[in-house]
């Protein structure tokens, strides 16, 4: 097994913040449009499905204890095919990271800094993310653990303050058949955010036990948090207003003013949301970087960090055309795209492994044996590519 460097609780917070990440920014208007007054139910059933998907990943990981997703691909499929799958995963993580960066710059240019070009934000955030990735997963997990209380308490406090305009009548009539149909038709939630935590499989080998339980708990907590936030937004703003806003959570808080003393608290929510997004970006950056490093085993790390950053800086402005195309994409393709990488490839890897086990072969034996390259360098120091632990596969 890989060196244990992060605790279960740290992994739990990482999962929660990764799932919440950009969701509160991007998804709420389309979520409320689909589910109307009952849209707070969507994250709950989405989260339940997300926990079900996570069982697949946990099963796969238990067959290859101590190996990350890239290493599992190499061990299960052999070097040529495994390299193809790992490279596709690198592209997938890069595409999600591109979305995250683009959402971030769209928010900043749309609210706080309208005259700053998007690539400026992309490059600045990528510089910090690459530094964190170079330091390793332990740094990312500790930073996240440190930030979580600083994010959670102000966030819920601000949301609580924003409920001054609360009106229960905004929820009635509840549970109408047509709105419930809309709730369960909204399959985007399955892809984004609940199929994206497949990226966390790159961190699995470094977690100190209870990995599966923490992943499940993290997804459940994130689903409950998103649901509660949507509930607060509907109760305070109503369905009509929410669907017409680009960033309802920001607008909700913007309207809060307590006796001319507590004003402009939207800056608090901006910082919280930016930090959440940054945590997601960090994990995705780390996943993309480590996928390439463990697959191709370069000797030096900084050229790879530079290359990954250059690609991500190029993906972010190119990922979507505009907001309308983005919402069309989310509605029609998000689930299909995320399902290929969140369900399709893990199911393929699992099927190959089970067939090999049934045939009496130890999965990974003699194929992709170098897959474990440098996995112990989770702290980012002293990476000895190609000389890491050998994969202990076969569950």
């Amino acid at each position, binding site marked *: 097994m890989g060196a244990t460097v992060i605790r279960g609780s740290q992994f739990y917070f990482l999962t929660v913040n990764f799932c919440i990440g950009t969701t509160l920014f991007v998804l709420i208007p389309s979520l409320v449009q689909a589910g109307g007054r009952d849209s707070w139910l969507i994250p709950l059933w989405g989260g339940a499905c997300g926990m079900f998907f996570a069982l697949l990943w946990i099963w796969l990981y238990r067959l290859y204890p101590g190996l990350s997703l890239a290493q599992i691909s190499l061990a299960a499929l052999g070097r040529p095919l495994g390299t193809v799958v790992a490279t596709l995963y690198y592209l997938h993580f890069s595409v999600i990271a591109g979305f995250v960066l683009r959402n971030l710059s769209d928010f900043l240019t749309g609210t706080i800094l309208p005259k700053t070009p998007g690539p400026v934000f992309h490059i600045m955030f990528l510089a910090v993310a690459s530094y964190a990735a170079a330091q390793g997963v332990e740094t990312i997990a500790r930073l996240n653990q440190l930030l979580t209380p600083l994010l959670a308490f102000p966030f819920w406090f601000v949301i609580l303050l924003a409920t001054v305009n609360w009106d229960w009548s905004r929820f009635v009539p509840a549970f109408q058949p047509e709105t419930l149909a809309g709730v369960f038709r909204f399959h985007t939630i399955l892809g984004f955010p609940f199929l994206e935590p497949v990226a966390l499989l790159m961190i699995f080998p470094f977690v100190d036990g209870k990995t599966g339980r923490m992943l499940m708990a993290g997804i459940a907590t994130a689903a409950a948090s998103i649901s509660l936030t949507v509930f607060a937004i509907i109760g305070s703003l109503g369905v009509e207003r929410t669907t017409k806003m680009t960033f309802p959570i920001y607008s909700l808080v913007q309207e809060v003013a307590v006796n001319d003393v507590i004003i402009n608290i939207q800056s608090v929510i901006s910082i919280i949301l930016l930090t959440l997004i940054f945590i997601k970006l960090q994990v995705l950056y780390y996943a993309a970087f480590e996928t390439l490093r463990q697959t191709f085993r370069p000797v030096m790390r900084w050229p790879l960090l*530079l290359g990954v950053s250059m*690609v991500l800086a190029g993906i972010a402005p190119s990922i*979507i055309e505009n907001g309308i195309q983005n919402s069309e994409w989310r509605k029609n393709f998000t689930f299909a795209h995320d399902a290929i990488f969140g369900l399709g490839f893990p199911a393929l890897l699992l099927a190959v492994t089970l067939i090999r086990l049934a045939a009496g072969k130890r999965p990974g034996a003699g194929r992709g044996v170098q897959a474990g390259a440098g996995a112990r360098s989770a702290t980012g120091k002293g990476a000895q590519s190609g000389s890491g632990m050998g994969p202990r596969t076969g569950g």
Partner: protein
Amino acid sequence: MVAFNLWFFPVAGAVLVYLLVKRLPRDAALFFALSVLSYVLWYGIARDQPIIITHLIEQGIRGILALLPMG
């Protein structure tokens, strides 16, 4: 466009030459692949006609669905 080429080639070229001088062909090949990918993306951005990645993925998904019996 000239400005883009002026900053891109010195940066990517210097790193590539450094890796080759250090006799790290694997590192150089990986960096070269990433540089080509980023050049393609940045070339579109510099010309103000970015390659929209979601359109490409969309076409790929449609292609896969067309191959399936239910597609």
